[in-house]
């Protein structure tokens, strides 16, 4: 058997691939196809589908009512990514420049909240941000800093705060990994060649950590774009993202085909993002 496999590497490859491949085929690719097909069908009255081909769902997707939600979701996801990068890069840089022992402790501290239930953490923000009974507004009001409660809840601000908080670790980790790989003597070499601290960052540190920045941004942007729990809780039912619309189509409006069409559009956007990511990492690897 062993000899047979050694002589036929292709067979060996298929044997290694088949368990995972089978699982993904049944539970990922097949459902994806079902969603794809549903998106071209008509809705049944009480959910389900009627087997009648139509483009109507995709036409409706571009109806401003829904398409604006798409744009707003993208806007929220981009802002989330931006703020994660703004907070995450210095943090990653700080961790990467500590001693090995301090580093592992700090990485652990970074990851522990990430391993806690996401729902619980989001509800924790609810108690902080709520307009009239939230901790922040209550504290500021009783201290006399503000006269009326700040609009901290039920808007894009609350959603972005929740998302940035939730996805910050996945921004930090790849940037940290890129900075950790960076040879410190490159920084010294740049200093030695008359570069100021700012020039060292712009010409050496930033370009060499870019693969980590791109990876982190993708890892934040994609789940942020499709997020559902955070806007449902912190959006207070007023500020919605595309994830909430999709779930409503399936659970409340009983319009499975339209939900499927919305899902397909989002999938396409994410796929484009992922392709861009892989292309840029391939290019970065070819450069390094």
């Amino acid at each position: 058997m062993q000899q047979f496999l050694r002589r036929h590497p292709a067979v060996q490859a298929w044997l290694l691939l088949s368990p995972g491949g089978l699982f993904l085929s049944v539970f990922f690719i097949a459902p994806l196809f079902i969603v794809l097909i549903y998106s071209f069908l008509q809705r049944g009255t009480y959910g389900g589908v009627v087997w009648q081909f139509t483009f109507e769902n995709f036409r409706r997707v571009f109806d401003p009512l829904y398409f604006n939600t798409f744009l707003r979701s993208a806007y929220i996801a981009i802002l989330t990514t931006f703020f994660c990068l703004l907070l995450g890069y210095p943090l990653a840089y700080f961790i990467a420049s500590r001693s090995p022992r301090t580093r592992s402790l700090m990485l652990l501290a970074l990851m522990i909240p990430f391993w806690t239930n996401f729902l619980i953490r989001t509800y924790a923000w609810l108690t902080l941000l709520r307009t009239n009974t939230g901790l922040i507004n209550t504290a500021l009001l009783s201290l006399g800093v503000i006269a009326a409660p700040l609009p901290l809840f039920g808007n894009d601000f609350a959603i972005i705060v929740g998302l940035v908080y939730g996805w910050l670790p996945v921004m930090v980790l790849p940037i940290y990994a890129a900075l950790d790989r960076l040879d410190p003597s490159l920084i010294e070499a740049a200093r030695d060649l008359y570069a100021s601290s700012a020039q060292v960052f712009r010409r050496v540190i930033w370009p060499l950590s870019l693969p980590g920045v791109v990876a982190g941004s993708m890892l934040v942007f994609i789940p942020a774009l499709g997020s559902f729990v955070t806007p449902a809780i912190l959006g207070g039912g007023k500020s919605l993202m595309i994830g909430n619309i999709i779930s409503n189509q399936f659970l409340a409006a009983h319009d499975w085909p339209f939900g499927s069409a919305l899902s397909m559009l989002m999938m396409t956007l994410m796929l484009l993002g992922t392709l861009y990511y892989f292309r840029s990492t391939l290019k970065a690897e070819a450069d390094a």
Partner: protein
Amino acid sequence: MSEECAVELRDVVKAFGPFVAVNHVSLQIRDGEFFSLLGPSGCGKTTSLRMIAGFEMPTSGHIYIGGAQQGYLPPNKRPVNTVFQQYALFPHMTVAQNVAFGLEMSHANKGEIGRRVHEALEMVHLGGLGTRKPKQLSGGQQQRVALARALVNRPKVLLLDEPLGALDLKLRKAMQIELKNLQEQVGITFIYVTHDQEEALTMSDRIAVMDKGQVLQVAEPEALYEQPTHRFTADFIGETNFIPARVAALSPTILVELAGGIRLPAGWVEPGIAVGDRVMLSVRPEKINLYEAHELEELTATTCRVRGVVERLVYVGTDTHHTVRLESGDRVVARLQNLHVDEEPWEMGEATTVQWEAAHGRVFKEA
């Protein structure tokens, strides 16, 4: 502070917590000189270099470059450039971009940058490789890029931190000669850190031998080898025999006594040694000759002569190393060149007499 000093270290100390890496080092490096800092790892040579470059700041003492005190000037404000041990080439830039980096940072104009980068690459024989990435070059080529990247800025002083350490022996030998030629051609002061004594002897105008954070001796290569002033230097540079002895007299001539009452004259004694002290007599193996009893001429006051037995022979091509057990019980190695085919070789167990000139015997403190 003399004018022709390119770099001067005045009583420089560098401590990392309780560890003193550089301990009261003073050095004067002349303009246009190829100066080496030589010593085993951890002797403080790299730390000294990094302080000149500005990567480390002295705990106390002062560093002058071209007569100007450097104080806490950062590396980018110092008129020196460094060739790093692992080259530290920027992996995301081409060879030409690497070489142009320093000129861009010091705001040279585009035309001049292009011309000088071209010249620098020609100088290190990498003319056609400007558009390659460092990863696409061999170790020797990367080494040349690192050199070009530093020299293109025409620094007052070039600092080199074991730049040949990563190359294989043959390439290293070739690069040694090339580096020396390059230094003479550009006339820039080179400060070269190495633990390889042969490399230092081959290239340097002067060498500072360092051990445990201190400079033991600064001398030209020949003086360093022939007249070491510390036991460590005698041991670290080349090979030598150490024979335990006791000082019998210091004047009119230096006399030491080996075990068994054998008294020998010596050429030099380390300062601070008194009559009766336990010492080490050092004689280089190539200074020792072997004679048969009938060959011996009359003993003069400047000749050392001890009877012994040939104990071991090691043939190494150009020479044969003869280990001789002296009457005193000590062993010495005599390195005899293999000059003639018809010479009758010594055999193991054969009685012999070792002889050397007293001037080649140097007396060091025991520890």
